[in-house]
Each structure stands twice: as structure tokens, then as C-alpha cells.
């Protein structure tokens, strides 16, 4: 006989409390089926207000031109591209959790993947705004698409990493969206079947594409998930790799360095996980999902944060070291005078980045700290401030002093419309997240059920007998004999 559902009791359970399949459905669907709370309305309306201000700021920029922003000839990229890279980075955790952690068989991903994937999609939507509106003459935006045209030799520049970005990000967005939505289908069907109101039945009926839960459906669903996971895995790496190429292919001191691709990816995962923490620490509390997104989940994600934060730290120090070691005066000047020098105009931002991204996450080496919710929430915000400043440091401190001091930029600070645009993307992000948390189950019901009998607290406690068996008895009874 072989035992398929066993997990060591040494591992903490991933679903707490006395749950059965029905209870799982009840718990997770409850917030979707209940009327939105006052708190939800307040949050939602604030988000919409921010979104409106963002739209207004963009209107200002489109109407009067990029001159509405404080970019200049030397500092041609400022808040816009910083925000773009920041949002793309945040959009990495979802697909990492759903694809790569799936391949690594990390059971805890089931508690957080749905919300993380949704967050990914919203973050990429925000990111995409920046390069589009940065174009200035946005009505010509379709020029980035390579298609047969009557413009003669005017063809997109395939040598440019900026164009690679267009392909990388649109591919990533499409695959992430498909992955997220196909995962939602069984849960949407559950909501449809439970719906008591006509409009709900219709809405979820259309949204669930006629899912019946037949074996055939599940089979295809599983096959599709595997194909999408396979496609997403390289995409997690490729998107931020290509974003890093935007900088690293150039010969700008501070930008051209070979470690950029993997280090950008690590940083993206770092900030993505921080954003997941920000959202889930609140969501689990407000929606009463503490038994599904347990302290254990928070703990594990904080481990990912300390790991990726340290990887990023090694990369920062490597960059700094090689800038010195290379003996290239321009490279060393960029680091020494524009970043490390605290008295330089933007020196403070370098230290802010180092403090938030490298030093502060080190607190998560301690188990007590990893399991402290308030601290986790605070740290998750701090990390994303740090990651914003990482991009700011890379972009602005590398370009604001050109080779000729006569071209040195004046102190670049954003206008209200640049800030407004950024705040607007927060509005977009949270508007989407509020709608998502209201109309969709924030935890993948079907996937939780998949791990329930292996990692659920009540099921695990019933495994005592197996746990107490000696190795030889266990092996005799349960080991798979695959004939070598």
C-alpha cells in the first residue's frame, strides 16, 4: 500500500483549525457574498479619488506636453521611469509564487498565490502607464508596434532594449493574466453555484466559462496550468532582465554593469514579496482569513525577503567594489561622488536605499521578528521605499552629472503632475485590488482543498500513528517500489 498524503508533523500546518472541504468554501466565499463593509467603501473611494487625480495629472501632461514634468536634457529619465521599473518589479512576486514555487512544490504558496497574482496584474497595468505617457506625443504610441506600414524605412528599432521591453512586458502581462484567470475558473463556478441573486448567478456564470467540475474539465485545467507555469517561469526572469538591459546595454557609468540582469530579478522578487506582505497582512485580518494565511505564511515570506534583500545587498557591494576595482575613472566617479558621497546632491538617496534594502531586512534573521505582524507590515513598506530609491539612485544619480560639468543638471525634483501621476497609479492599483477582494475569492479555494488533507491542522494531527512508526515499518508499508 502506498501513502500519498503524508507530511511530517515537524512542519507547521498550512491550514489551521478544524476545517473540512465545505468549511473552506464557506470561509473564503463569505467576504465575497457579504455586503461590502463601511471600511471597504472608504478605502475604495479614497483609491478612486487618487485615480482621478492621476488621470487629471496625465491630462495636464498630454495637453501641455512633457514640459509639465521637470525632466531636462541631462536628466531625461526621472520619476516616470523610476516608477515604471518600481511597478514592474512589484509585479514579479505573483508569477514567482504561482510558477516557480509550484515547480519547487512549496505548499504554502496556495494560501497567497491568488492575491499575489492579482497584485502582479495590477502592478504591471500601473507600470505600463509610465513609458506610454512618457512618450509625450502619445497619439503616436502605436509606432512601437512592428507592423507593415507606409512609413517606408521608418520601422521599429529592433536593436533597442526599449523595444524588447514592449514585447517582454506585454507577453508577461498576457501570460500572467491567463494564468490567474484560468486558476480562478473553478472558484468562480463555486460562487456561481452558491449564488442566490440572479445577477450574481449571471455574472459568475459568464465569468466561469461554463465550468462544471467534470473530470474532463479538471484534466484540461491541470494541463493548462502546467503549460502556463512552464511559460511563466522563464518570463519571471526575462521581464526584469530586459528592464535591466534598458540601462546595462548603455555606456553610462553606473548603468553599464554585467550583474544587472540577475540582480534586478532578485530586487524585483524582493519588492514584490514586500508588496504581497503589505496587502496580505491587512487582507487576512479584515476578511478574517488568519487560518489560511497563517503566521507561518508570513514567516516564510519574510525569509524570502531577507534572502532576496541580501542577494541585492551582495549585488550593491559587488557593483561598488568593481567600480573601484575597474580603475575606470568615470565609473568610480559615478559611485564615489554621485552616490557614496553623502554631501553630493543625491547622496542621501544612496544611503536610504542601502538602509531600507540591505540593512533593515537583516532583522528577519530572527524568528520572533519574522512572526511579528506589525513589524512585518512596517518592514514591507520600508522595503518598497528602499526599492523605489534603488531605481531612483540608478536612474537619476547616473545621469544628472554628464561628462561635461557644463551639462550638469540642476537639482531635479518632480512637479506636482509627476507626483500626481505616481499617486494616480496607486489609485489604479488599489481600486483594482479593492474590486478584486470584493468580487473574487482572495484565496484559491480549489488549491487549498488540494493541500488540506496533507497540511491541514486537523488532518495532520490524525497522522500520529504514521509519525510514530519507525523508519523500517513505514518503509515496509508505504515506500513506493518503482522497480529501481
Amino acid at each position, binding site marked *: 500500500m502506498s501513502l500519498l498524503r503524508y507530511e511530517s508533523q515537524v512542519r507547521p500546518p498550512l491550514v489551521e483549525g478544524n476545517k473540512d472541504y465545505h468549511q473552506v468554501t464557506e470561509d473564503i466565499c463569505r467576504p465575497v457574498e457579504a455586503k461590502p463593509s463601511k471600511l471597504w467603501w472608504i478605502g475604495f473611494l479614497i483609491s478612486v479619488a487618487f485615480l482621478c487625480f492621476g488621470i487629471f495629472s496625465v491630462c495636464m501632461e498630454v495637453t501641455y506636453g512633457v514640459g509639465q514634468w521637470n525632466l531636462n536634457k541631462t536628466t531625461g529619465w526621472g520619476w516616470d521611469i523610476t516608477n515604471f521599473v518600481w511597478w514592474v518589479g512589484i509585479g514579479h512576486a505573483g508569477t514567482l509564487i504561482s510558477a516557480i514555487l509550484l515547480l519547487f512544490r512549496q505548499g504554502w504558496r496556495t494560501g497567497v498565490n491568488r492575491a499575489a497574482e492579482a497584485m502582479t496584474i495590477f502592478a504591471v497595468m500601473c507600470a505600463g502607464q509610465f513609458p506610454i505617457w512618457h512618450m509625450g506625443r502619445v497619439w503616436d504610441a502605436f509606432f512601437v508596434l512592428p507592423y507593415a506600414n507606409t512609413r517606408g524605412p521608418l520601422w521599429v528599432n529592433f536593436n533597442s532594449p526599449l523595444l524588447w521591453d514592449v514585447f517582454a512586458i506585454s507577453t508577461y502581462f498576457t501570460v500572467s493574466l491567463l494564468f490567474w484567470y484560468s486558476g480562478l475558473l473553478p472558484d468562480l463556478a463555486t460562487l456561481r453555484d452558491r449564488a442566490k441573486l440572479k445577477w450574481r448567478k449571471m455574472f459568475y456564470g459568464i465569468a466561469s466559462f461554463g465550468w462544471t467540475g467534470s473530470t474532463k474539465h479538471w484534466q484540461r485545467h491541470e494541463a493548462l496550468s502546467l503549460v502556463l507555469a512552464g511559460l511563466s517561469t522563464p518570463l519571471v526572469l526575462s521581464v526584469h532582465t530586459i528592464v535591466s538591459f534598458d540601462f546595462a546595454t548603455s555606456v553610462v557609468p553606473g548603468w553599464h554593469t554585467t550583474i544587472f540582469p540577475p540582480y534586478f530579478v532578485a530586487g524585483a522578487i524582493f519588492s514584490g514579496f514586500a508588496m504581497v506582505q503589505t496587502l496580505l497582512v491587512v487582507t487576512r485580518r479584515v476578511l478574517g482569513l488568519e487560518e489560511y494565511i497563517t503566521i507561518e505564511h508570513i514567516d516564510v515570506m519574510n525569509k524570502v525577503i531577507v534572502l532576496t534583500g541580501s542577494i541585492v545587498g551582495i*549585488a550593491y557591494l559587488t557593483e561598488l567594489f568593481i567600480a573601484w576595482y575597474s580603475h575606470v575613472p568615470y565609473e568610480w566617479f559615478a559611485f564615489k561622488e554621485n552616490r557614496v558621497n553623502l554631501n553630493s546632491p543625491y547622496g542621501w538617496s544612496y544611503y536610504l536605499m542601502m538602509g531600507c534594502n540591505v540593512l533593515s531586512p537583516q532583522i528577519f534573521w530572527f524568528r520572533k521578528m519574522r512572526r511579528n505582524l506589525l513589524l512585518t507590515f512596517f518592514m514591507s513598506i520600508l522595503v518598497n521605499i528602499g526599492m523605489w530609491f534603488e531605481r531612483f539612485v540608478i536612474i537619476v544619480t547616473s545621469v544628472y552629472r554628464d561628462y561635461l560639468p557644463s551639462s550638469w543638471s540642476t537639482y531635479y525634483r518632480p512637479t506636482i503632475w509627476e507626483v500626481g501621476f505616481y499617486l494616480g497609479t496607486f489609485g489604479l492599483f488599489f481600486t483594482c485590488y479593492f474590486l478584486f477582494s470584493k468580487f473574487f475569492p482572495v484565496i484559491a479555494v480549489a488549491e487549498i482543498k488540494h493541500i488540506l488533507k496533507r497540511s491541514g491542522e486537523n488532518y495532520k494531527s490524525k497522522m500520529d500513528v504514521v509519525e510514530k512508526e519507525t523508519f523500517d515499518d513505514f518503509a515496509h508499508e508505504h*515506500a513506493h517500489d518503482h522497480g529501481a
Partner: protein
Amino acid sequence: MASTRDTFQVPKRYNSLAIALMAIGIIAIIALYITTHGSGGTPAEKHQSDARFWASLLQNSVYFLLVCNAVIFFIAATTLAWGGWQMSFRRVSEAITVCVPVVGTICGVILLTILFSSNHIIYHWSDNNVVANDAALDWKSGFLNKGFFATWTVFTIVAWSLVGWKLRSLSRSTDAGKLTVEEGKRYMWTNTVWAAIYIVIFALTVMSSIPWFWLMSIDAHWYSTMYSWYTFASSFVAGIALITLFVIYLKNTGYLEFTTKEHLHDLGKFQFAFSIFWTYLWFAQLMLIWYANIPEETVYFKPRYFGAYSPIFWMVFMINFVAPILIYMSRDSKRNYATLTFMSMLILFGHWLDFYQMVFPGSVSPDHVPTILYDFGVGIGFVGVILFVTARALTKAPMIAKNHPLIKESLIHHT
């Protein structure tokens, strides 16, 4: 079900093979010494032939040390991630890590001999006269100096060996008797702490400073921030290939009855994934340097991409990327012993060749590839050492850590 074979007994043929391989290595070293030092010549020529000789020892010892050390990394990483699946062959990984102090000592002696001998062709930054007339090397002497190199090298090898030993002895401590769940939790905690200590050391050595010192400083004027991570990726794939080979050998001789195709499939996936990861770093480093086209950086790829080393350079790409991605793509190939054995050997050779092109153009000559057969012979000798030491280590502990808290998960493991 076959009877449990608890401890490994070294078969005679295995022993003879290991000794024969070591003998080949020694013969190769002697032959290399004779051919390089036979003709006398001017002091400059002598230095050149000395460099040829030592470069071979440097490449082989550093490569095989980093590969064995990658196995400690594998243990530490799976410990931190609570990976239960690999417990059924964990003792095999542990046995390989016994090679770290042995190969480490050989490597340390070779590195320090190169550093402190009067021949400065390999590490030309170690020659004060050269440094005095070279602004760049003079600038770098805060890092590239004999004292720092030697201290850090010794510290690194000792630290890897000690933590490796600690992780092994923690594993051995479970052999005493079955652990309760509470004891299991405490045990996992101690294990996690030591694995974390190792990871910190790993970050400070393999992921940063050690490849700069041992390898990148051969081309002392050249620099690449990617270099250390690239070296890590290379040695890690090879480390997984080494584990796979030992597991398959032991399966074929009737040991490791609880390690199944499921586990091998996962090892195959690791080889597949990290071969692609290696290629990712390979491509990123090459492409960024090519694209920016800065002479100080492109100079490194001149002999490799276009010059005498170009056949090796592209062969490395074929072996380490094209072969794994095509062959390991299918599920069946990762579950087939013959394919796995062939591919693991190929990957070990491919990354050996990668290290070859990292070391030789800078230390011997960018214009011609020396007779690689000698170096291959030296490499065979190191393989012999690893076979010998690992087998000895395997005999000293039960083949399965029966009381490890996660062992049962490994028994019912399915990919």
C-alpha cells in the same frame, strides 16, 4: 523488496578504478612537468613553461573544489528550504562534501605556491615590479595583494570544511535513535542555524570575493560584476551532476533502495533548470559586454569569442546549454539512468571546459590553446581523489539517515 543494505562497502573494482584514476592524474602531472620543463631555455621561457604547468593545477583544483563545495551548498539550501524530497540520498551528498577539506588542501597549497613563487605570470599582480609600473594594478593593490589573497584563501577553505563537517555531524547525530516531533523540531532548528551560517559564508566567498581572487585576477586588468555569480552557476550545475552520478552508481550496485526514479527525475530537473540559469548568466555577461563595446571589457572575449579559444568557447555553449535543454526537455530522459549518467558526465566535462577557457587564455597564452590532454589527465586524477574520498566517507555512516524528521516524506516522494 530488496534487503536493506545499510552501509556501503567499497567494491574492489571501484577501489582499483579510483586508484587507477589517481595514478593517471599523477602521470599526467609528471608528463606535463617534463614536457614543459624539458628544454631549459631563457628565464622568461622558463617562467612561461612554469605558468603552463601551474595553470593546469590551478584550473583543476579550483574547479573540483568549487564543485564539491557546491554540494555543501545544495545541502545547506535544501536544509533552509525544508526540502524533504532529497533525504533518501542525503548521505551521498554528505559523503561528497568530505572531499572539500581534501581537495581544498590540495587547492590551497597550489594557490599559495603560485602566489608566493617567484613566477608571476599567472597572477602578475603579485609581482611588485610589475605593479610599480602599472597604474591600474597599483590602484588595485588594496585588494590584489599577497597578504589578503592568502589569508582569505585559507580562511575560506577552513570555513567551508568546518561548516561542512558540522552539517555532517548534525546529520550523524540522528542515527542514535528515533526523534519525537518536539525533538525533531529542535533538530531542524539547529540544522537551520548551521545551514544559515554556511549561506552567509557562501555569500561572502563563492558569490563574491573568491572567484575574483582565484580566477578573475588572472586577467587582472579585466573586470565583470557578473563573474562570481557566473562561476557559482557553473559549479552548482556540476555539483548536482556529481551527486546524480554517485546516486546512480549506488543504485546500480544495490544500495539506496528507497531512492527511486522520482528522486532522480528531480535531480535531472535541477540539472536542466540550472543549466539554463548558467546560460542566462553566460548570455547576460557576454551580451552586455558585446553591446556596450568598451575595449577594457571586450578584450576578455577577444581570444575566447574570436581567437584561438573560440572552438572551446562554443563547445562549452553546446555542451552546457544546447545539450541539456534538448535532451533533458522530456520527462523520460530525466528518468532514464543511461541518459542521466551520460548527461551528468557531459555536464561535468562541459563546466570543466568552461573553467579551462576562464583560466588558460590569461595565464598561458591568448593566442594558442595548449595540449589539453595533459590537463584532462590532471582532471582525471582529481576525479580519482573524489571517488576515493567519497567512498571512504560512505562506509563510515549508514546510507540512510533513518531518523531524520523529513525522511518519510522522501520515501513517498512523487515528482
